[in-house]
């Protein structure tokens, strides 16, 4: 409270300040605001002075605000964040953290998310940053708001702030028995506060609302079908769009005849360069119109799947020097001679697709030169920029709104559908909805990068690692470093000139790098005749990862007798994004049929904000990870995707589900880390190692068994 008093409480016209600070036509925000208390958090260095002194120029206002909060005189509390909800439950978990610090019921918090006009700028919802970063910021904002309310009450009552307590959205004075609700406190006021320093936060050990597992705040809308995803929206006068796609990547439109479509009633054809699309009064008319257009495309020759891995190795991309992702310690060349056992192996990872169950969709509406687009994206502000650039308009003339979205998994960072819908809407002079088909989503989105990973390693006879060389071609540098103690290391990422459009995917390259490293650790353990778990622990000093390995192994019963022949056990683990993961898998092999029967995963991601949802995220990541581990792969030839349907691209189903047991290591003494991604990384190597244990067949390519188990002789 003493700290909060450092920042002067200003009675101020928040709206005009905001307008100046963001130079945006925040019309919606004006309506929302009204009177009440408004608190925002400025990043360190963003704002060097107290806020709101009269006559200040707008350049002195904070431009890097990450979150803000409003308490209305009706008691409604609204928290604003540029993050979006794509199934990771942050609408609830962020609200929980606000409720915790404000000491109010969860239901009184409204979260406004992912709306470029109402919420602070945000880079995007990815990298498991929402919980550690946005959660922390909202806690700070809410804690400051609480202090401010206490101070206001103290002033009214001429009491000491330290004598007052808050509970249930009310400030109490236990001495005098007085009480006043937040709503009354902020009534008929416009209080604004910019937080410059860190308020004291409630420690995780004292959390009541945070750290619990309430039902999703808007869960009811999902079970009743009432929730409107982007693809469900309609606005008045809206047309339905359809894009005429090239016959292959990089194709040029050689010729087209649009006249059969143009003669259809109510159809607009929009052509700009190679962009060709239609807008019509309903879906079926749009489909018919698109089908009536005849096109010829010029398709350049392109790399096909069979040449993929040689291509990735052979064509380092131009940007290699810039990325400079190389890590060296010790002296590899001298170290080789000291190792009693050395091995060199290569691992590969196929392209896979995110397959968000809701494909890309957008609704675009122009009002004069102002463009509003509703779309499911993880990066509303980046999509706003994409739109501004596409139409040569200012970002202040674009608003992007993200309804809670039918999942993304790193696959919705971009605004393709948004730009296409806006183009059609512009051409048609009416709002347009565009929903990609599954085939479009499979073809025209982007993929998790394929990769080749070479690993060379050596150990002493007692199992101590001596050297470790790791070269990742194209898949990415995430979690590339080894958590094991190795005196001599060279670890490098080599970007390549990749044949397909690629981008982020849940856990990025951590899945590929864990697969290579943890498979390789297993191979080395077997070469040394050591138990794979013991070998890892011998080379591991990180206590949190050790604890995760022990917890998983313990629950799994590592080392116990197998129930029957044809069973195999595998273990894998690692550190990524502040999380410590260990996974044990059991497989059963019956001729070429492999089944993952049981998975035990231990995960330490610091203090846990919502235990139930965390365990759901972990088991969901395991299920999704199983797809990439076992059978998911994009097949392509000469610029065409060969399996762009769910009938030809297999995703995990109920019948693939192993028994999943999750051990959450709740570390109340550690800051919360994001949890949506890292739990995906251990499953592929754990399963590969279990298959080896059962069969002595070492599989070094993800997916491991797209067509069942290969014959032993076929193993490279």
């Amino acid at each position, binding site marked *: 409270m003493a700290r909060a008093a450092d920042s002067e409480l200003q009675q101020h016209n928040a709206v005009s300040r905001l307008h100046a600070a963001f130079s945006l036509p925040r019309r919606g925000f004006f309506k929302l605001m009204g009177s009440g208390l408004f608190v925002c958090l400025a990043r360190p260095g963003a704002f060097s002075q107290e806020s709101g002194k009269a006559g200040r120029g707008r350049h002195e206002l904070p431009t890097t605000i990450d979150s803000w909060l409003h308490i209305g005189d009706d008691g409604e509390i609204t928290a604003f964040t540029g993050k979006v909800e*794509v199934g990771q439950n942050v609408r609830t978990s962020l609200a929980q953290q606000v409720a915790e610090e404000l000491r109010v019921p969860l239901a009184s918090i409204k979260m406004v998310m992912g709306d470029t006009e109402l919420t602070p700028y945000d880079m995007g919802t990815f990298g498991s940053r929402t919980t550690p970063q946005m959660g922390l910021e909202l806690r700070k904002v809410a804690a400051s708001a609480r202090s401010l309310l206490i101070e206001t009450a103290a002033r009214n009552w001429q009491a000491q702030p330290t004598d007052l307590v808050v509970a249930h959205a009310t400030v109490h004075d236990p001495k005098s028995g007085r009480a006043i609700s937040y709503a009354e406190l902020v009534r008929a006021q416009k209080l604004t506060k910019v937080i410059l320093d860190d308020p004291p936060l409630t420690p995780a050990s004292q959390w009541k609302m945070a750290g619990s597992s309430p039902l*999703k705040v808007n869960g009811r809308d999902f079970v009743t*079908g009432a929730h409107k995803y982007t693809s469900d929206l*309609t606005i008045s006068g809206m047309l*339905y769009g359809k894009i005429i796609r090239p016959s292959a990547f990089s194709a040029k439109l050689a010729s087209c005849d649009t006249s059969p479509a143009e003669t259809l009633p109510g159809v607009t054809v929009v052509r700009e360069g190679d962009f060709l699309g239609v807008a019509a009064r309903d879906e079926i008319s749009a489909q018919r119109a698109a089908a009536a257009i005849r096109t010829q495309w010029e398709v350049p020759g392109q790399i096909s799947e069979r040449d993929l891995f040689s291509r990735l190795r052979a064509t380092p991309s131009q940007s290699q020097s810039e990325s400079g992702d190389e890590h060296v310690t010790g002296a590899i060349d001298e170290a080789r001679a000291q190792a009693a056992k050395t091995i060199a192996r290569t691992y590969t990872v196929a392209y896979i697709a995110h397959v*968000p*169950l809701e494909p890309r969709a957008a609704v675009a509406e122009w009002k004069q030169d102002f463009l509003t687009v509703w779309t499911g994206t993880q990066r509303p502000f980046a999509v706003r920029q994409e739109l501004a650039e596409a139409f040569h308009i200012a970002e202040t003339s674009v608003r992007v709104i993200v309804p*809670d979205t039918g999942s993304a998994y790193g696959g919705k960072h971009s605004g393709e559908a948004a730009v296409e819908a806006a183009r059609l809407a512009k051409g048609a002079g009416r709002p347009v909805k565009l929903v990609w*088909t599954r085939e479009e989503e499979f073809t025209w989105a982007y993929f998790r990068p394929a990769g080749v990973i070479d690993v060379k390693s050596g150990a002493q006879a007692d199992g101590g690692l001596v050297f470790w060389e790791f070269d990742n071609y194209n898949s990415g540098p995430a979690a590339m470093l080894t958590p094991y103690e190795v005196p001599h290391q060279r670890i490098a990422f080599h970007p390549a000139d990749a044949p397909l459009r690629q981008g982020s995917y849940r856990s990025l390259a951590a899945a590929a790098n864990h697969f290579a490293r943890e498979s390789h650790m297993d191979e080395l353990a077997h070469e040394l005749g050591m138990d794979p778990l013991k070998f890892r622990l011998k080379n591991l000093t990180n206590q949190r990862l050790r604890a995760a390995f022990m917890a998983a192994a313990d629950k799994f019963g590592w080392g116990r007798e197998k129930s029957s022949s044809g069973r195999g056990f595998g273990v894998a683990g690692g550190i990524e994004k502040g999380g410590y993961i260990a996974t044990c898998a059991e497989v059963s092999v019956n001729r070429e049929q492999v089944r993952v029967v049981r998975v035990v995963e231990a995960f330490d991601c610091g203090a846990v904000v919502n235990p139930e949802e965390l365990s759901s995220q972990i088991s969901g990541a395991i299920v999704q990870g199983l797809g990439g581990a076992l059978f998911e792969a994009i097949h392509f030839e000469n610029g065409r995707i060969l399996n762009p349907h769910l009938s030809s691209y297999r995703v*995990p189903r109920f019948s693939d589900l192993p028994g999943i047991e999750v051990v959450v290591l709740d570390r109340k003494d550690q800051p919360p880390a994001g949890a949506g991604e890292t739990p995906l990384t251990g499953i592929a190597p754990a399963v590969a190692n279990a298959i080896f244990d059962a069969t002595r067949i070492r599989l070094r390519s993800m997916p491991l068994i797209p067509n069942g188990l290969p014959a032993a002789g076929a193993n490279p």
Partner: protein
Amino acid sequence: MSFTLLVNGAAYSLDVPPEETLLSVIRERLGLTGSKYGCGEGRCGACTVLIEGSPVRSCSMKIGAAAGKTITTIEGLASGGSLHPVQQAFLEKQAFQCGYCTPGMILSALALLEHITAPTSEQIGRYLDGNVCRCGTYPRIIEAVHAAALSRSKPNGKSRG
């Protein structure tokens, strides 16, 4: 062509091209957007509706085939303010993340429970295998179906369906 659809207890007369799918009609013409498009080829179950109580992939059915039959969509389950027991169980067991698969899952689960009042986990998995949850909430969904079975079996539990 004109068709009559009986959806959630109401009759609709519609004039639509015969090649239009049931999914597109209920979403676009009737505004019942709880049924989702996920694949358009009968492989994900997001578009599941009940026709005469049996689960049907509405993306793969032409409007004519559904005309005159009793159709239930997710919007038809809750009555008044109270959720259907299967919806309630999905909500309480947090059996979804993004929720996009949820309406199809709930309707498929409901159809299963009409056949087998207390299914085993294996039976649930087998019956729902055509419904994809890309978020991988399968374990929770199985729990939710068990919970719904239990609540429906209670004598004073709600057992509409």
